[in-house]
Protein backbone atom coordinates (compact mmCIF):
# COMPACT_ATOMS: atom_id res chain seq x y z
CA UNK A 1 0.00 0.00 0.00
CA UNK A 2 1.33 3.42 -0.84
CA UNK A 3 0.25 6.82 -2.11
CA UNK A 4 1.22 8.23 -5.43
CA UNK A 5 2.83 11.58 -5.94
CA UNK A 6 1.70 12.79 -9.33
CA UNK A 7 2.25 16.49 -9.68
CA UNK A 8 0.79 16.78 -13.16
CA UNK A 9 -2.66 15.31 -13.55
CA UNK A 10 -2.45 15.56 -17.30
CA UNK A 11 0.64 13.39 -17.30
CA UNK A 12 -1.29 10.35 -16.12
CA UNK A 13 1.27 8.15 -17.79
CA UNK A 14 -0.36 4.93 -16.72
CA UNK A 15 1.38 1.91 -18.07
CA UNK A 16 -0.27 -1.07 -16.46
CA UNK A 17 2.46 -3.38 -17.58
CA UNK A 18 1.90 -7.00 -16.85
CA UNK A 19 4.13 -8.98 -19.11
CA UNK A 20 6.37 -8.85 -22.07
CA UNK A 21 5.80 -10.61 -25.34
CA UNK A 22 3.01 -10.67 -27.89
CA UNK A 23 0.12 -8.25 -27.83
CA UNK A 24 -2.79 -10.10 -26.19
CA UNK A 25 -5.92 -10.92 -28.11
CA UNK A 26 -9.20 -9.11 -27.67
CA UNK A 27 -10.56 -12.22 -26.00
CA UNK A 28 -7.69 -12.13 -23.48
CA UNK A 29 -8.46 -8.49 -22.68
CA UNK A 30 -12.15 -9.35 -22.45
CA UNK A 31 -11.34 -12.04 -19.88
CA UNK A 32 -9.05 -9.72 -17.91
CA UNK A 33 -11.76 -7.07 -17.95
CA UNK A 34 -14.29 -9.63 -16.74
CA UNK A 35 -12.05 -10.47 -13.80
CA UNK A 36 -11.62 -6.77 -13.04
CA UNK A 37 -15.41 -6.54 -13.02
CA UNK A 38 -15.55 -9.34 -10.49
CA UNK A 39 -13.41 -7.08 -8.31
CA UNK A 40 -15.81 -4.23 -8.98
CA UNK A 41 -18.80 -6.28 -7.81
CA UNK A 42 -16.84 -7.23 -4.69
CA UNK A 43 -16.68 -3.52 -3.90
CA UNK A 44 -20.19 -2.48 -4.85
CA UNK A 45 -22.17 -5.49 -3.69
CA UNK A 46 -20.42 -5.86 -0.34
CA UNK A 47 -20.05 -2.15 0.40
CA UNK A 48 -21.22 -0.88 3.76
CA UNK A 49 -20.34 2.29 5.68
CA UNK A 50 -18.46 0.16 8.20
CA UNK A 51 -15.77 -0.96 5.76
CA UNK A 52 -12.27 0.49 5.61
CA UNK A 53 -10.19 0.73 2.42
CA UNK A 54 -8.01 -2.14 3.58
CA UNK A 55 -11.07 -4.35 4.11
CA UNK A 56 -12.44 -3.44 0.70
CA UNK A 57 -9.10 -4.21 -0.90
CA UNK A 58 -9.04 -7.59 0.82
CA UNK A 59 -12.54 -8.37 -0.51
CA UNK A 60 -11.43 -7.37 -3.98
CA UNK A 61 -8.28 -9.45 -3.89
CA UNK A 62 -10.14 -12.52 -2.67
CA UNK A 63 -12.76 -12.19 -5.42
CA UNK A 64 -10.22 -11.48 -8.13
CA UNK A 65 -8.14 -14.47 -7.14
CA UNK A 66 -11.17 -16.75 -7.08
CA UNK A 67 -11.98 -15.55 -10.60
CA UNK A 68 -8.55 -16.54 -11.83
CA UNK A 69 -6.65 -13.26 -11.64
CA UNK A 70 -4.37 -11.28 -9.42
CA UNK A 71 -3.32 -7.68 -8.97
CA UNK A 72 -1.38 -6.13 -11.82
CA UNK A 73 2.31 -5.58 -11.01
CA UNK A 74 1.73 -1.85 -11.47
CA UNK A 75 -1.46 -1.26 -9.56
CA UNK A 76 -1.28 2.51 -9.29
CA UNK A 77 -3.89 3.20 -11.92
CA UNK A 78 -5.30 5.78 -12.34
CA UNK A 79 -2.23 7.78 -11.36
CA UNK A 80 -3.62 10.73 -9.56
CA UNK A 81 -2.62 12.45 -6.40
CA UNK A 82 -3.73 11.76 -3.78
CA UNK A 83 -4.82 8.15 -4.10
CA UNK A 84 -4.70 5.03 -1.98
CA UNK A 85 -3.57 1.71 -3.40
CA UNK A 86 -3.52 -1.83 -2.18
CA UNK A 87 -3.33 -4.98 -4.28
CA UNK A 88 -5.87 -4.59 -7.11
CA UNK A 89 -7.66 -1.57 -5.64
CA UNK A 90 -7.08 2.16 -6.03
CA UNK A 91 -9.28 4.69 -4.24
CA UNK A 92 -8.94 8.32 -5.24
CA UNK A 93 -8.37 10.76 -2.41
CA UNK A 94 -6.34 10.79 0.77
CA UNK A 95 -7.39 7.78 2.80
CA UNK A 96 -5.96 5.77 5.63
CA UNK A 97 -6.27 2.02 5.40
CA UNK A 98 -8.11 1.79 8.73
CA UNK A 99 -10.40 4.79 8.22
CA UNK A 100 -14.03 4.34 7.22
CA UNK A 101 -15.00 6.10 4.01
CA UNK A 102 -17.35 9.06 4.35
CA UNK A 103 -20.91 8.24 3.31
CA UNK A 104 -21.65 11.61 1.73
CA UNK A 105 -18.45 11.86 -0.31
CA UNK A 106 -17.97 10.09 -3.62
CA UNK A 107 -15.88 6.94 -3.47
CA UNK A 108 -14.00 6.85 -6.76
CA UNK A 109 -12.10 3.64 -7.31
CA UNK A 110 -10.38 1.52 -9.92
CA UNK A 111 -9.63 -2.18 -10.08
CA UNK A 112 -6.55 -3.26 -12.01
CA UNK A 113 -5.84 -6.93 -12.48
CA UNK A 114 -3.54 -9.29 -14.25
CA UNK A 115 -4.94 -12.43 -15.82
CA UNK A 116 -2.37 -14.73 -17.38
CA UNK A 117 -0.19 -11.82 -18.39
CA UNK A 118 -2.95 -9.55 -19.62
CA UNK A 119 -4.05 -6.42 -17.80
CA UNK A 120 -7.68 -5.55 -17.20
CA UNK A 121 -9.12 -2.53 -15.48
CA UNK A 122 -12.47 -1.01 -14.56
CA UNK A 123 -13.36 2.09 -12.55
CA UNK A 124 -16.44 3.62 -10.98
CA UNK A 125 -17.68 6.21 -8.53
CA UNK A 126 -20.24 5.48 -5.85
CA UNK A 127 -21.80 7.21 -2.87
CA UNK A 128 -23.41 5.67 0.20
CA UNK A 129 -25.85 8.46 0.99
CA UNK A 130 -28.07 10.74 -1.03
CA UNK A 131 -25.68 12.91 -3.04
CA UNK A 132 -26.00 16.66 -3.26
CA UNK A 133 -27.42 18.16 -6.44
CA UNK A 134 -23.97 19.57 -7.13
CA UNK A 135 -22.29 16.20 -6.91
CA UNK A 136 -24.92 14.69 -9.19
CA UNK A 137 -24.35 17.50 -11.66
CA UNK A 138 -20.58 17.11 -11.56
CA UNK A 139 -20.73 13.35 -11.98
CA UNK A 140 -23.19 13.69 -14.86
CA UNK A 141 -20.94 16.27 -16.51
CA UNK A 142 -17.91 13.99 -16.36
CA UNK A 143 -19.87 10.92 -17.48
CA UNK A 144 -21.50 12.77 -20.38
CA UNK A 145 -18.14 14.13 -21.48
CA UNK A 146 -16.71 10.62 -21.50
CA UNK A 147 -19.70 9.27 -23.41
CA UNK A 148 -19.16 11.98 -25.98
CA UNK A 149 -15.55 10.88 -26.30
CA UNK A 150 -16.54 7.23 -26.71
CA UNK A 151 -18.90 8.20 -29.51
CA UNK A 152 -15.89 9.56 -31.37
CA UNK A 153 -13.61 6.57 -30.90
CA UNK A 154 -12.75 5.15 -34.31
CA UNK A 155 -9.76 4.07 -36.31
CA UNK A 156 -7.86 7.12 -37.53
CA UNK A 157 -8.84 9.38 -34.62
CA UNK A 158 -6.01 10.62 -32.40
CA UNK A 159 -6.14 10.69 -28.60
CA UNK A 160 -5.45 14.41 -28.85
CA UNK A 161 -8.75 14.91 -30.66
CA UNK A 162 -10.51 12.86 -28.01
CA UNK A 163 -8.94 14.86 -25.21
CA UNK A 164 -9.88 18.14 -26.82
CA UNK A 165 -13.48 17.04 -27.15
CA UNK A 166 -13.47 15.90 -23.54
CA UNK A 167 -12.07 19.14 -22.17
CA UNK A 168 -14.52 21.19 -24.21
CA UNK A 169 -17.45 19.11 -23.00
CA UNK A 170 -16.46 19.54 -19.35
CA UNK A 171 -15.91 23.25 -19.84
CA UNK A 172 -19.48 23.72 -21.09
CA UNK A 173 -20.98 22.43 -17.83
CA UNK A 174 -18.08 22.70 -15.45
CA UNK A 175 -19.87 23.03 -12.11
CA UNK A 176 -17.26 22.51 -9.39
CA UNK A 177 -15.13 20.17 -11.49
CA UNK A 178 -11.43 20.86 -11.73
CA UNK A 179 -8.24 19.03 -12.69
CA UNK A 180 -10.19 17.04 -15.25
CA UNK A 181 -8.11 14.50 -17.11
CA UNK A 182 -8.72 12.12 -19.97
CA UNK A 183 -6.30 9.22 -20.25
CA UNK A 184 -6.27 7.05 -23.34
CA UNK A 185 -4.38 3.82 -22.87
CA UNK A 186 -3.91 1.19 -25.50
CA UNK A 187 -2.76 -2.37 -25.59
CA UNK A 188 0.83 -2.34 -26.64
CA UNK A 189 3.31 -5.08 -27.38
CA UNK A 190 4.21 -6.72 -24.12
CA UNK A 191 0.65 -7.25 -22.92
CA UNK A 192 0.45 -3.83 -21.37
CA UNK A 193 -1.83 -0.85 -21.37
CA UNK A 194 0.34 2.12 -22.20
CA UNK A 195 -0.49 5.75 -22.60
CA UNK A 196 -1.39 6.23 -26.23
CA UNK A 197 0.69 8.65 -28.24
CA UNK A 198 -1.54 11.71 -28.35
CA UNK A 199 -0.82 12.40 -32.00
CA UNK A 200 -0.87 8.85 -33.34
CA UNK A 201 -4.14 7.73 -34.89
CA UNK A 202 -5.90 4.82 -33.25
CA UNK A 203 -5.68 1.54 -35.10
CA UNK A 204 -8.84 -0.45 -35.67
CA UNK A 205 -7.37 -3.46 -33.93
CA UNK A 206 -6.56 -1.51 -30.79
CA UNK A 207 -8.29 -2.14 -27.50
CA UNK A 208 -8.13 1.07 -25.51
CA UNK A 209 -8.99 2.15 -22.01
CA UNK A 210 -10.48 5.63 -21.83
CA UNK A 211 -10.45 6.99 -18.31
CA UNK A 212 -11.91 10.31 -17.19
CA UNK A 213 -11.04 11.67 -13.76
CA UNK A 214 -11.72 14.97 -12.06
CA UNK A 215 -12.04 16.55 -8.65
CA UNK A 216 -15.34 17.99 -7.52
CA UNK A 217 -16.06 20.03 -4.43
CA UNK A 218 -17.10 16.76 -2.78
CA UNK A 219 -14.16 14.57 -3.84
CA UNK A 220 -12.68 12.72 -6.78
CA UNK A 221 -14.74 11.19 -9.57
CA UNK A 222 -13.68 8.60 -12.13
CA UNK A 223 -15.47 6.95 -15.04
CA UNK A 224 -13.84 4.60 -17.50
CA UNK A 225 -14.46 2.28 -20.42
CA UNK A 226 -12.49 -0.43 -22.22
CA UNK A 227 -13.30 -0.31 -25.92
CA UNK A 228 -12.39 -2.31 -29.00
CA UNK A 229 -11.79 0.40 -31.58
CA UNK A 230 -12.92 -1.44 -34.71
CA UNK A 231 -16.25 -2.64 -33.36
CA UNK A 232 -16.72 0.21 -30.88
CA UNK A 233 -17.74 -2.53 -28.47
CA UNK A 234 -17.36 -1.64 -24.83
CA UNK A 235 -15.81 -4.67 -23.11
CA UNK A 236 -16.80 -3.74 -19.57
CA UNK A 237 -20.27 -3.25 -18.16
CA UNK A 238 -19.62 -0.93 -15.26
CA UNK A 239 -22.20 1.88 -15.06
CA UNK A 240 -20.88 5.19 -16.29
CA UNK A 241 -22.78 7.27 -13.75
CA UNK A 242 -22.73 8.01 -10.06
CA UNK A 243 -23.73 4.79 -8.29
CA UNK A 244 -25.99 5.52 -5.35
CA UNK A 245 -25.96 2.73 -2.78
CA UNK A 246 -28.76 3.66 -0.42
Amino acid at each position, binding site marked *: MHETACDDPFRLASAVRTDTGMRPSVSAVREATRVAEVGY*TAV*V*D*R*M*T*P*ALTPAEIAANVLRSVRSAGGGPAPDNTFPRRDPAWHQDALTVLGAHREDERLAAQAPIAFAITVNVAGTAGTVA*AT*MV*LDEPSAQLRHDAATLADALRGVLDQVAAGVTPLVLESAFLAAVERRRGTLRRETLAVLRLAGGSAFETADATKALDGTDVIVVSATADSAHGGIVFQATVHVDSAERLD*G*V*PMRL*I*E*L*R
Partner: protein
Amino acid sequence: MAMDEKGSEAASVRLGFGLELPMIGFGTFPLRGETARRAVESAIALGYRSVDTAMRYRNEDAVGAAVAEARATGTDVLVTTKLATDQVGHEREALLGSLRRLRLSRVDLWLIHWPPGGSAGVGSWRELIRARDDGLVSAIGVSNYSIAQIDRLIESTGTAPDLVQRSWGPNEFDENYLAACAERGIMLCAHSPLRTTPLDHPVLVETARRHGRTPAQVILRWDLQHGVAAVPKSAEPARMAENLDVFGFRLADEEMRAIDALAAASVS
Protein backbone atom coordinates in the same frame (compact mmCIF):
# COMPACT_ATOMS: atom_id res chain seq x y z
CA MET B 1 -48.93 -28.69 -5.66
CA ALA B 2 -46.70 -31.61 -6.59
CA MET B 3 -46.01 -33.98 -3.72
CA ASP B 4 -43.06 -36.17 -3.01
CA GLU B 5 -43.93 -39.88 -2.80
CA LYS B 6 -41.65 -41.05 -0.01
CA GLY B 7 -40.49 -37.89 1.67
CA SER B 8 -43.88 -36.14 1.91
CA GLU B 9 -42.29 -32.72 1.35
CA ALA B 10 -43.79 -30.72 -1.45
CA ALA B 11 -41.77 -30.54 -4.67
CA SER B 12 -43.01 -27.00 -5.04
CA VAL B 13 -44.42 -24.26 -2.85
CA ARG B 14 -46.99 -21.58 -3.55
CA LEU B 15 -45.68 -18.06 -3.12
CA GLY B 16 -47.72 -14.89 -3.13
CA PHE B 17 -49.88 -14.19 -6.16
CA GLY B 18 -50.21 -17.90 -6.89
CA LEU B 19 -46.68 -18.48 -8.08
CA GLU B 20 -45.73 -22.13 -7.78
CA LEU B 21 -42.02 -22.30 -6.96
CA PRO B 22 -40.23 -25.65 -7.43
CA MET B 23 -38.28 -26.43 -4.27
CA ILE B 24 -35.22 -27.36 -6.32
CA GLY B 25 -34.24 -24.89 -9.01
CA PHE B 26 -31.24 -24.66 -11.26
CA GLY B 27 -28.57 -22.11 -10.28
CA THR B 28 -26.60 -20.63 -13.15
CA PHE B 29 -23.73 -18.66 -11.58
CA PRO B 30 -20.99 -18.40 -12.90
CA LEU B 31 -21.98 -20.00 -16.22
CA ARG B 32 -22.02 -17.72 -19.24
CA GLY B 33 -22.66 -17.76 -22.96
CA GLU B 34 -23.02 -21.06 -24.75
CA THR B 35 -21.98 -22.99 -21.66
CA ALA B 36 -24.84 -21.42 -19.75
CA ARG B 37 -27.36 -21.99 -22.54
CA ARG B 38 -26.43 -25.64 -22.91
CA ALA B 39 -26.47 -26.17 -19.15
CA VAL B 40 -29.95 -24.66 -18.81
CA GLU B 41 -31.20 -26.73 -21.73
CA SER B 42 -29.82 -29.87 -20.10
CA ALA B 43 -31.33 -28.91 -16.76
CA ILE B 44 -34.75 -28.38 -18.31
CA ALA B 45 -34.48 -31.67 -20.20
CA LEU B 46 -33.70 -33.39 -16.90
CA GLY B 47 -36.82 -31.96 -15.27
CA TYR B 48 -35.83 -28.65 -13.68
CA ARG B 49 -38.69 -26.18 -13.90
CA SER B 50 -37.05 -23.24 -12.17
CA VAL B 51 -33.92 -21.36 -13.27
CA ASP B 52 -32.09 -18.81 -11.18
CA THR B 53 -30.12 -16.03 -12.83
CA ALA B 54 -29.19 -12.42 -12.11
CA MET B 55 -28.31 -9.28 -13.96
CA ARG B 56 -24.90 -9.59 -12.33
CA TYR B 57 -24.27 -13.05 -13.79
CA ARG B 58 -24.23 -11.68 -17.34
CA ASN B 59 -26.02 -14.80 -18.56
CA GLU B 60 -29.63 -13.63 -18.78
CA ASP B 61 -29.46 -13.78 -22.56
CA ALA B 62 -28.27 -17.40 -22.48
CA VAL B 63 -30.89 -18.33 -19.89
CA GLY B 64 -33.53 -16.55 -21.94
CA ALA B 65 -32.60 -18.45 -25.09
CA ALA B 66 -32.85 -21.81 -23.34
CA VAL B 67 -36.11 -20.94 -21.59
CA ALA B 68 -37.65 -19.60 -24.80
CA GLU B 69 -36.82 -22.86 -26.54
CA ALA B 70 -38.44 -24.83 -23.74
CA ARG B 71 -41.54 -22.65 -23.71
CA ALA B 72 -41.86 -23.01 -27.48
CA THR B 73 -42.31 -26.73 -26.92
CA GLY B 74 -44.84 -26.24 -24.14
CA THR B 75 -42.53 -26.62 -21.16
CA ASP B 76 -43.08 -23.85 -18.66
CA VAL B 77 -40.06 -22.81 -16.64
CA LEU B 78 -40.08 -20.35 -13.76
CA VAL B 79 -37.39 -17.67 -14.02
CA THR B 80 -35.83 -15.80 -11.12
CA THR B 81 -33.57 -12.84 -11.74
CA LYS B 82 -32.04 -10.18 -9.52
CA LEU B 83 -31.56 -6.46 -9.51
CA ALA B 84 -27.88 -5.51 -9.39
CA THR B 85 -26.91 -3.29 -6.49
CA ASP B 86 -25.56 -0.58 -8.76
CA GLN B 87 -29.01 -0.09 -10.30
CA VAL B 88 -30.47 1.80 -7.34
CA GLY B 89 -32.52 4.63 -8.82
CA HIS B 90 -32.64 2.83 -12.19
CA GLU B 91 -34.72 -0.17 -11.19
CA ARG B 92 -37.37 -0.03 -13.91
CA GLU B 93 -34.78 0.44 -16.63
CA ALA B 94 -32.84 -2.51 -15.20
CA LEU B 95 -35.93 -4.70 -15.12
CA LEU B 96 -36.82 -3.88 -18.71
CA GLY B 97 -33.26 -4.83 -19.67
CA SER B 98 -33.60 -8.14 -17.86
CA LEU B 99 -36.93 -8.83 -19.54
CA ARG B 100 -35.44 -8.09 -22.95
CA ARG B 101 -32.44 -10.35 -22.40
CA LEU B 102 -34.63 -13.09 -20.94
CA ARG B 103 -37.16 -12.74 -23.81
CA LEU B 104 -39.97 -12.50 -21.30
CA SER B 105 -42.85 -10.11 -20.76
CA ARG B 106 -42.90 -10.90 -17.05
CA VAL B 107 -40.29 -12.19 -14.62
CA ASP B 108 -41.65 -14.81 -12.22
CA LEU B 109 -39.50 -13.78 -9.28
CA TRP B 110 -37.45 -10.58 -8.99
CA LEU B 111 -35.03 -10.08 -6.11
CA ILE B 112 -32.78 -7.29 -4.87
CA HIS B 113 -29.40 -9.03 -5.15
CA TRP B 114 -27.58 -7.38 -2.24
CA PRO B 115 -28.56 -4.79 0.37
CA PRO B 116 -27.36 -1.59 -1.33
CA GLY B 117 -24.50 -0.10 0.64
CA GLY B 118 -25.56 -2.26 3.56
CA SER B 119 -28.91 -0.45 3.79
CA ALA B 120 -32.29 -2.09 3.34
CA GLY B 121 -32.75 -0.36 0.01
CA VAL B 122 -36.28 0.84 0.71
CA GLY B 123 -36.36 2.95 -2.45
CA SER B 124 -35.53 -0.05 -4.59
CA TRP B 125 -38.02 -2.19 -2.69
CA ARG B 126 -40.78 0.29 -3.53
CA GLU B 127 -39.83 -0.12 -7.17
CA LEU B 128 -40.07 -3.90 -6.91
CA ILE B 129 -43.55 -3.53 -5.43
CA ARG B 130 -44.49 -1.15 -8.23
CA ALA B 131 -43.19 -3.60 -10.83
CA ARG B 132 -45.35 -6.31 -9.31
CA ASP B 133 -48.36 -4.01 -9.26
CA ASP B 134 -47.71 -3.23 -12.91
CA GLY B 135 -47.63 -6.92 -13.79
CA LEU B 136 -43.99 -6.98 -14.87
CA VAL B 137 -43.06 -9.49 -12.18
CA SER B 138 -45.12 -12.12 -10.34
CA ALA B 139 -43.35 -12.26 -7.01
CA ILE B 140 -40.64 -10.21 -5.33
CA GLY B 141 -37.96 -10.77 -2.78
CA VAL B 142 -34.46 -10.05 -1.60
CA SER B 143 -31.13 -11.80 -1.45
CA ASN B 144 -28.36 -11.75 1.15
CA TYR B 145 -30.52 -9.74 3.58
CA SER B 146 -30.49 -9.85 7.36
CA ILE B 147 -33.77 -10.09 9.24
CA ALA B 148 -33.24 -6.50 10.46
CA GLN B 149 -32.99 -5.32 6.85
CA ILE B 150 -36.10 -7.29 5.91
CA ASP B 151 -37.98 -5.76 8.84
CA ARG B 152 -36.98 -2.31 7.67
CA LEU B 153 -38.59 -3.04 4.30
CA ILE B 154 -41.74 -4.27 5.97
CA GLU B 155 -41.93 -1.28 8.34
CA SER B 156 -41.41 1.16 5.49
CA THR B 157 -43.78 -0.32 2.94
CA GLY B 158 -46.05 -2.79 4.71
CA THR B 159 -44.97 -5.37 2.16
CA ALA B 160 -42.84 -8.38 3.07
CA PRO B 161 -40.68 -10.16 0.52
CA ASP B 162 -42.25 -13.32 -0.87
CA LEU B 163 -38.85 -14.98 -0.71
CA VAL B 164 -35.37 -14.36 0.66
CA GLN B 165 -32.39 -16.03 -0.90
CA ARG B 166 -29.09 -16.39 0.91
CA SER B 167 -26.06 -18.59 1.13
CA TRP B 168 -27.33 -21.48 3.17
CA GLY B 169 -25.88 -24.86 3.94
CA PRO B 170 -25.37 -27.01 7.04
CA ASN B 171 -22.39 -24.90 8.11
CA GLU B 172 -24.60 -21.80 7.94
CA PHE B 173 -27.70 -23.23 9.59
CA ASP B 174 -29.36 -20.53 11.68
CA GLU B 175 -32.51 -21.64 13.45
CA ASN B 176 -33.40 -18.07 14.40
CA TYR B 177 -33.17 -16.86 10.81
CA LEU B 178 -35.30 -19.75 9.62
CA ALA B 179 -37.89 -19.09 12.32
CA ALA B 180 -37.92 -15.36 11.59
CA CYS B 181 -38.64 -16.04 7.94
CA ALA B 182 -41.45 -18.40 8.86
CA GLU B 183 -42.98 -15.84 11.25
CA ARG B 184 -43.04 -13.27 8.47
CA GLY B 185 -44.40 -15.69 5.88
CA ILE B 186 -41.22 -15.46 3.83
CA MET B 187 -39.93 -18.43 1.85
CA LEU B 188 -36.22 -19.12 2.35
CA CYS B 189 -34.20 -20.26 -0.64
CA ALA B 190 -30.61 -21.50 -0.40
CA HIS B 191 -28.12 -20.25 -2.91
CA SER B 192 -24.73 -21.97 -3.07
CA PRO B 193 -26.24 -24.81 -1.00
CA LEU B 194 -23.34 -27.17 -1.71
CA ARG B 195 -20.45 -24.75 -1.51
CA THR B 196 -20.03 -23.86 2.12
CA THR B 197 -20.01 -27.25 3.82
CA PRO B 198 -17.31 -29.82 3.02
CA LEU B 199 -19.02 -32.66 1.24
CA ASP B 200 -16.60 -35.09 2.82
CA HIS B 201 -17.74 -34.23 6.33
CA PRO B 202 -18.18 -37.55 8.18
CA VAL B 203 -21.74 -36.73 9.24
CA LEU B 204 -22.77 -36.13 5.63
CA VAL B 205 -20.82 -39.09 4.29
CA GLU B 206 -22.28 -41.49 6.85
CA THR B 207 -25.82 -40.19 6.39
CA ALA B 208 -25.45 -40.53 2.64
CA ARG B 209 -24.14 -44.07 2.98
CA ARG B 210 -27.16 -45.08 5.08
CA HIS B 211 -29.55 -43.85 2.42
CA GLY B 212 -27.53 -44.93 -0.61
CA ARG B 213 -27.25 -41.28 -1.65
CA THR B 214 -24.52 -38.70 -2.05
CA PRO B 215 -23.60 -36.04 0.53
CA ALA B 216 -24.89 -33.38 -1.90
CA GLN B 217 -28.27 -35.13 -2.02
CA VAL B 218 -28.30 -35.30 1.76
CA ILE B 219 -27.76 -31.54 2.01
CA LEU B 220 -30.52 -30.78 -0.48
CA ARG B 221 -32.84 -33.21 1.28
CA TRP B 222 -31.99 -31.50 4.58
CA ASP B 223 -33.00 -28.19 2.97
CA LEU B 224 -36.31 -29.62 1.79
CA GLN B 225 -37.19 -31.04 5.19
CA HIS B 226 -36.53 -27.62 6.72
CA GLY B 227 -38.91 -26.15 4.13
CA VAL B 228 -36.03 -24.40 2.39
CA ALA B 229 -35.90 -24.23 -1.40
CA ALA B 230 -32.51 -24.50 -3.10
CA VAL B 231 -30.86 -23.56 -6.37
CA PRO B 232 -27.79 -25.78 -6.76
CA LYS B 233 -25.63 -25.18 -9.81
CA SER B 234 -23.79 -27.69 -11.95
CA ALA B 235 -22.67 -27.73 -15.56
CA GLU B 236 -22.58 -31.54 -15.51
CA PRO B 237 -25.84 -33.29 -16.49
CA ALA B 238 -25.14 -36.24 -14.21
CA ARG B 239 -24.70 -33.89 -11.26
CA MET B 240 -27.78 -31.91 -12.26
CA ALA B 241 -29.83 -35.10 -12.24
CA GLU B 242 -28.40 -36.09 -8.88
CA ASN B 243 -29.30 -32.72 -7.37
CA LEU B 244 -32.87 -33.03 -8.57
CA ASP B 245 -33.27 -36.59 -7.35
CA VAL B 246 -33.85 -35.81 -3.69
CA PHE B 247 -37.53 -36.61 -3.27
CA GLY B 248 -37.28 -40.37 -2.86
CA PHE B 249 -35.89 -40.63 0.66
CA ARG B 250 -36.34 -39.02 4.04
CA LEU B 251 -33.85 -38.07 6.74
CA ALA B 252 -34.70 -39.18 10.26
CA ASP B 253 -35.14 -36.55 12.94
CA GLU B 254 -31.83 -37.46 14.56
CA GLU B 255 -30.10 -37.15 11.19
CA MET B 256 -31.59 -33.70 10.71
CA ARG B 257 -30.38 -32.65 14.15
CA ALA B 258 -26.89 -33.98 13.47
CA ILE B 259 -26.68 -31.96 10.27
CA ASP B 260 -28.11 -28.88 11.99
CA ALA B 261 -25.31 -29.19 14.53
CA LEU B 262 -22.62 -28.82 11.86
CA ALA B 263 -23.06 -25.05 12.00
CA ALA B 264 -22.18 -24.85 15.67
CA ALA B 265 -19.32 -27.29 15.16
CA SER B 266 -17.94 -25.21 12.29
CA VAL B 267 -17.86 -22.10 14.48
CA SER B 268 -16.25 -23.68 17.53
